[in-house]
């Protein structure tokens, strides 16, 4: 069941509310997700990242606004809201305005299929993982539009680099998501998670899936332009890359979606490789139903946030790749690895009749 359906079920006996059509509940849940989760989470993620960066570089980080500087992100958002909105005279005005919209749309809409818990999912699509690939690849279009529309050399270079990079790393990402779907036998996000109940996590399914988890994580890092793969917005080379000309609120959108996307890929890794809301030796049949949602959300978010912290740790530890090294890494390392893992997983499935490693172990004892 999805969140809008759940709302409809809850209010089905209320006098006025029961007459509301489905789309009202959809709209409400979309707005609730955006305002109660995406925006605050992106803000807190920025704060946490700055704190981690501070720790790694042996300094304090934000510590002025609020206790331990925890309100820093609200101050940042307010500052960006009050900044003047500048559109360069030579820019292509329409495309310049359109680019953040398409980036926000694709970045936010990818949250629709993140399964926070069995029922807490915005749209329980039967092709969830396929939808995710489709919607996240729209970002590259927004990036290339913003780079071209700015009529700025830095932006153009950044936009083209970003497009080449996102598009290249899309291949290993799509291949690893597909292999996971192949091993777990579904495209639906909730079914994917439930196929990993107990200890049958995706990474333990077979040795190839374990490699693939790393392939996915690395290429997803590159797909959202995080360091060490942030050449599209390399400060030392391109000022700020494709968003050089954007200021104020428009820049804030690029910034927000960067963090939202980072969370999305962590959530997807959790969903398909780390068993979503499942833990070893935890059987949901023995837990009272009203505890399911809080428990599942807690487990899911813990795993996803752990991956997010690892991502930040990587960012502040490793130096940046060069363009040619990056493309070499993608096409000559990650893509062949992904193909080998695809065929290896398929072979494993045939040899062991679709059973994962843990299931086979269970059969032994």
């Amino acid at each position: 069941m999805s969140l809008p359906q759940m709302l409809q079920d809850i209010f089905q006996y209320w006098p006025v509310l029961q007459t509301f059509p489905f789309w009202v509940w959809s709209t409400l849940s979309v707005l609730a997700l955006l305002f109660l989760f995406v925006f605050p989470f992106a803000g807190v993620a920025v704060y946490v990242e700055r704190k981690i960066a501070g720790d790694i570089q042996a300094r304090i980080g934000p510590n002025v606004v609020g206790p331990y500087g925890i309100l820093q992100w609200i101050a940042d958002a307010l500052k960006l809201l009050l900044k003047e909105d500048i559109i360069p005279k030579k820019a292509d005005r329409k495309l310049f305005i359109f680019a953040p919209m398409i980036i926000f749309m694709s970045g936010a809409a990818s949250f629709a299929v993140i399964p926070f818990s069995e029922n807490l999912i915005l749209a329980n699509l039967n092709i969830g993982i396929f939808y995710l690939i489709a919607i996240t690849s729209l970002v590259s279009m927004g990036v290339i539009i913003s780079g071209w529309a700015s009529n700025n050399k830095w932006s153009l270079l950044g936009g083209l680099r970003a497009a080449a990079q996102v598009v290249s790393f899309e291949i290993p990402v799509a291949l690893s998501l597909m292999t996971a779907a192949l091993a777990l036998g579904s495209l639906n996000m909730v079914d994917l998670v439930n196929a990993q109940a107990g200890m049958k996590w995706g990474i333990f399914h077979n040795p190839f899936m374990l490699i693939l988890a790393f392939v996915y994580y690395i290429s997803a890092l590159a797909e959202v332009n995080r360091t060490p793969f942030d050449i599209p917005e390399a400060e030392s080379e391109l000022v700020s890359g494709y968003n050089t000309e954007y200021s104020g609120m428009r820049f804030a959108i690029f910034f927000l979606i960067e963090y939202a996307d980072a969370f999305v890929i962590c959530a997807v890794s959790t969903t398909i490789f780390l068993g979503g809301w499942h833990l070893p030796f935890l059987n949901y049949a023995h837990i009272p139903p009203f505890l399911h949602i809080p428990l599942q959300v807690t487990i899911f978010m813990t795993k996803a946030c752990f991956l997010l912290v690892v991502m930040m740790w990587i960012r502040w530890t490793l130096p940046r790749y060069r363009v040619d090294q990056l493309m070499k890494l993608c096409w000559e390392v990650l893509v062949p690895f992904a193909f080998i893992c695809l065929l290896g997983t398929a072979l494993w499935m045939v040899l062991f009749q679709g059973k994962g490693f843990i299931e086979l172990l269970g059969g032994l004892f």
Partner: protein
Amino acid sequence: MFLEYTTIFIFLIVGIAMVPLMLLIGKILRPHAPDDKKTSTYECGEIPLGSSWIQFNLRFYVIAFLFLIFDVEVAFMFPVASIFKQWTQAGFGQGWLAFIEVAIFVGILLVGFAYAWHKGDLNWVRPKKKE
């Protein structure tokens, strides 16, 4: 099941509408005083030379082509991936049949991939041709 797509549709509309809305809120509060210097193109303080709408390197085109081929391949593989497990559970015969079909489909692409690799299309910096 199609009801779920309502949410997706609304998500896309809200996603598009949210950006102008955010800008509209700021419009009341923020200053608006553009001048020639402020709205000129940023080029690290220099006066910008010419337009940047230029022809760019052809290798971006090659990358786009490679991407297209691989992505279509992946898109076609997804239906197979979703039922592969059922086939393998149905028995050895069906499992091998499915595996061989997948292997042929991937194999054809890998031949093309090997060709592109050998030809040097995957290299970002092309070595200069020997005379």
